[in-house]
């Protein structure tokens, strides 16, 4: 059984990461992943079906559990949420993938979407498609991919995203706009040259 990270430990790691320690991030990410997974699993499985789950609520709970809020500045908080966003994406994709593979008898092949996102066969499929599109976007423009990750998977506000990425809010807004258009195009399967 793994030790529960103390709030202090997470807080210190968070600060260290804020100060530029890559190692801190490597240590933080699995902690956050595990915690979020746990919370997400619990909430998803048991909340009333009509209860709308908000990513932010989830991330906030992880935050309450993992971080000593009194010890961190709100910049650290943005960093934490950024990690949550990454972890959230991973959790959902892992989950969608396992669900998808169950349906396909274990096949791990990527799902190609021809009809586009709106007509996606299942939530799992659309999530996987989005994830793959995001990977392509990352190859093209890493920051835009991060913006989408934080805004969509992490529920970060424009300002929080800006803080975590250390860019202006205006830049985030522009990135978000273009990235959405780009992703939408990717997912609707229409390229200009096709």
């Amino acid at each position, binding site marked *: 059984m793994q030790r529960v990270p103390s709030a202090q430990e997470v807080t210190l790691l968070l600060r260290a990461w804020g100060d530029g320690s890559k190692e801190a991030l490597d240590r933080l990410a699995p902690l956050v992943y595990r915690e979020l997974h746990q919370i*997400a699993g619990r909430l998803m499985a048991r909340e009333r079906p009509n209860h709308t789950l908000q990513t932010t609520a989830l991330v906030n709970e992880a935050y309450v559990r993992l971080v000593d809020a009194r010890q961190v500045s709100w910049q650290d908080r943005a960093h934490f949420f950024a990690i949550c966003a990454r972890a959230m994406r991973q959790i959902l994709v892992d989950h969608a993938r396992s669900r998808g593979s169950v349906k396909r008898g274990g096949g791990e092949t990527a799902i190609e979407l021809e009809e586009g996102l709106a007509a996606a066969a299942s939530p799992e499929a659309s999530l996987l498609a989005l994830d793959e599109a995001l990977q392509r976007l990352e190859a093209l423009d890493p920051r835009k991919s991060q913006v989408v990750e934080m805004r969509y998977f992490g529920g970060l506000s424009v300002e929080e995203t800006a803080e975590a990425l250390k860019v202006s809010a205006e830049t985030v807004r522009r990135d978000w706009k273009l990235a959405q258009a780009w992703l939408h195009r990717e997912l609707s399967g229409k390229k200009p040259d096709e």
Partner: protein
Amino acid sequence: MNERWQEIERIYHQALELDGSARAEFLAKTCDGDPGLRAEVESLLAHEDQAGSFLETPPVEMAAKAFGKAERSPAASTAALELGTMIAHYRVTASLGAGGMGEVYRARDTKLQRDVALKILPQALAHDAEPMARFEREAQVLASLNHPNIAAIYGLEESNGIRALAMELVEGATLGERIALAEGHPPPARSGEFTSPHGGVKPPLQLGELLSIARQIAEALEYAHERGVIHRDLKPANVKITPEGTVKVLDFGLAKVLSGMGVSPLRGQDAHATDQNSPTLSMTGTEPGMILGTAAYMSPEQARGQRVDRRCDIWAFGCVLYEMLSARKAFDGETISDVLAAVITKEPDWNALPTTAPLSIQKLIRRCLVKDAKQRLRDIGEARITIEETLTGDAGERSALPREGEALPDLPAGPLSQGEGGPGERDRVRAPLRRALPWLAAALLVLLVARLFWMFRPSSSAQVTGMVQLTDDGRVKFPALLSDGSRVYFGEAPWDKAQVSVNGGEVAPVTSVPLPQGLLLDISPDGSQFLATQATKLADRGPLWSAPVLAGSPRRLGGLMVNITTQSLAWSTQAAAWSPDMQRIAFARGNELYTARPDGTGAKKIMTLPGVGFAVHWSPGGMLLELTVQDTKTNTDSLWQVRADGTNLHPLLPGWNGASEECCGVWTPDGKYVVFQATRDGLTSLWALPQKTGLFSRASRQPTQLTTGPMNTLSPVISRDGKKIFTLGIQPRGKLVRYDARSKSFVPYLGGESIYCADFSKDGQWVTFLSYPRGDLMRSKIDGSQKLQLAYPPLQSYLPRWSPDGKQIAFSGLKTGEAWKVYIVAADGGEPERLLPQDTAEEIDPSWSTDGKRLVFSKNPFTELAPERERELEIVDLKTRQVTKVPGSEGLFSARWSPDGRYLAAMTRDSTRLMLYDFSSRLWQDLVKMGIGYPNWSRDSKYLYFNDFKNTAFYRVRISDRKLEQIASFMGITSVREGFDAWTGLAPDDAPTVMIDTSIAEIYALDWTAP
């Protein structure tokens, strides 16, 4: 990122700004000769329109559906049993429903011919050998529990692959159902509903019945705890009451047993202790609402997923008791997150407890619901004793509001009981008693303090063994305390420096430091010199002086400046200290730590601190520096150590005290301990932290508490021989007074209550105020009736202001770890709401516009080192929440809207100028140039009232001709002078009001032993 993509991006954003033909034209021009580029941009633009909101559905919800499906897969569910099914020798006769721990059936024991309850275990785990073996072992322990108030476990049975726990079948309603019977009734409150047989409202539970139930629950827990069994999931739904009134606690220890088996289908290899400790949270088959139900009774340590012990049951017991009394949950919320956050950060609504509930029981609940497990009631047996005493003794008759002659409560007047007395309570005490009371109280206090000190005796760690009061002059004293071995030096209000012998006696002035507003910082190791500073206009800095202890004159040390704060009683400044060899002085200025030669030359910055540095002390060997760092962003104070060369800076007690509020660590002469003060729940006490002394010694690094309430103990200083700790003991209390122009004196106002920050509704009938020293935000009629608390910890409130229509109150609020924010709360109660939930900057000091549609507020000038230009006054439109900056208001704060709406008044950051803004001319003008505090408009908008910076007098200035007059002197009264509590205000008739200090503050010597 390739260049083409950058080009696409640039053109895309430019094109977005344009419409229709302009856009087409722009694209044609820009992408001339590159149709591929144009096609790319155009396709993105096309998708921009469609993309709209496609990423708006939260992905979690999407996945929730998927997870939900997994949940209903057959492997994890329990098969519904058909009636008549035999499991071993039990025949299932009826379904009792699905509880938090799986499905439950009524069954007939065909051997013993009795009815039992059968709990069916989820099949998934019934096939898993290893956890099953553990389950059996633990079930045996549970089955060994034999107590009339615990539902017995008969055994574990298996047949046809189904495993079930056979348990005592308890008929009757659960406590949850019993409490719910009262639903539809208003929560029992205020008047004597428990004791009055004629009361119109039927309470959910009669007091006697309630206490009887509580006693039986406590007995059950006590019995189990003695056998090392923790319930872990105590809640009203797990307590049954038989028709005969016998209580049976259900599901003892099952939470742990079941969760240890991995009942949650989502648990994988990565499961960690959270599940172990969050009982029902990890169970399958829970019905909707079940999680919420359990989370509400989880202790903070459970909620955090930390290791738990029996104190989590004590917490839950407190929650249950609270709920029985108030018919509402102690911690509640819409979502699990809300509930958990409440458990971790919020206090229950203490006002929901009926005032007629016995004081002893109210205290008991508070002791059970202390968030820090270490400070919580230690033994459920104590709860049982308290309940029994209340049931049998006359304590049961006593209510929280002392009646005539009952001014002294039966328990120590700790922080719990402060502020409980109603308005004017003291005045109702009969005259002879009233005269005797202060003496009685003082005597009792000393006795109590002594008793509490001695009671606290953890074995084999540092402990206080005795206490002597050194001073008795009744004057308000303040830190820092210094000692040269024969004398103790300290401050006395307002700005005096005083001394007393280490053996006690007369207080004498220190005459050798004739610095106006001087503060002593340190005394040299040879006892010959002080380090001192002065409070100045700069507020947070002061010049560094050295001064001889006996005779001579002070000497300015170069141009050195050191940090000063007068923010709270808990603070001593002490931002400079002599090294043991007297060769150096270490001092803190802002976020920087320096050393210099004793004459002030050779100042050298040794490092940058993570906050503002105070309370600098050298280790006996001169290798290390101990200091307190104030984080101005989170408003926390914590202890740090650093080598004297500026390396190895580290916090001493990371994460130890929730909202870190430690200060003033001093080394013992042998270097074995650092003694410091820590503030928890408003009470400051002394602690000792073992230090690593040698290569092989292993310090436990866990501090030991040396003093407990009811008195605050602060600013420790250790005697030269290490055997005594000198401390300032403070029992804060104030009295609200107003200036009576006829008698030219200050007279008690609003019953002379210990309150401040009083603000009145426009009709003069209502007042909102803060209690002192707790700082609870309250409102009441001016006669003290209809008192209502409007905000609860951890939200601290300051300077509440009535809206012109009397319906709302705006105030500055501070939550631990956050910046100051403006909040608005309905005058009739409710949750205080942030004015600008999105704003991250500090907001303080709201003031209403005449029509009540706007609020002006400012930035806190003393914290957060923001540039001057960002410290502007801002006006919020309450309807649109649109914020506009007041032109030319850079660096101003404490804005006050004139009642006629024509002006704003505000102060400069250094509080030396009062400025006036005319809304018609949009210009600022100087109104007064002097040290200003707490400006307030007269009702007719013709005057501004304020006190001077030094709190010596009240002034007013006439707007029409700037005429300044002193209207009342503070001579002869001692106002509370520390930080925010040094407030002054105006009564509805424009009479100045102030809270005078009636605190007891004396110097004590503690004898202590430390291994």
